[in-house]
């Protein structure tokens, strides 16, 4: 039953990612959600899917989101 807690935390992170006012907080919640989902995939036995989830979502997509926000913020102040 330990995985129900994981599911609950993932849903919580997803809601936070959607609802947070600050974009950086929202992206951090998205990153945490991606890591939780990767753990869930690993527990399901889909090891490769879990690795790809970590590499692409938690790695690439989150970084891209942060870079985008960073670029836009810098323009706004400048």
């Amino acid at each position, binding site marked *: *039953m*330990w*995985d*129900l807690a994981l*599911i609950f935390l*993932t*849903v919580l992170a*997803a*809601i936070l*990612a*959607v609802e947070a006012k600050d*974009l950086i907080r*929202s*992206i951090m919640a*998205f990153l945490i*959600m*991606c890591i939780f*989902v990767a753990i*869930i*995939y690993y*527990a*399901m*036995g*889909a090891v*490769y*899917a879990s690795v*790809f*989830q970590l590499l*692409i*979502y938690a790695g*690439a*997509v989150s970084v*891209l*989101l942060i*870079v*985008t*926000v960073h*670029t*836009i913020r810098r*323009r706004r102040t400048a």
Partner: protein
Amino acid sequence: MGLTSPQAYIAFSIILLAIGVYCLVSKRNMIKTVIGIEVTTIAVNTALLSLSWARVATISHITGAMVEPLAEALVIISIVIGGAIAALALSLVVNAYRHYKTLDLKKLKRLRW
């Protein structure tokens, strides 16, 4: 480490799907829209994996989770495509910001959903 039934995971993926679609239809920020697309993609991937597990559970009564290789391959392809779409969408967001100096979808003149 026994997992609960695949039905719990199917329900989980439906909740994620609802969150993603809600984000897409209600949020005005373009970056939030990209996050919504990605959450929806993750939800559909999870649905595919848990449906595959449910199928294995009904035909062979294996305890514990097991996912068939075809479903896993499709999920990997879908994850990679989701990454590509996120990169493309974010480049469009940056370009849109250059033109409008805002991320608000309502300010984009002709963009009506």
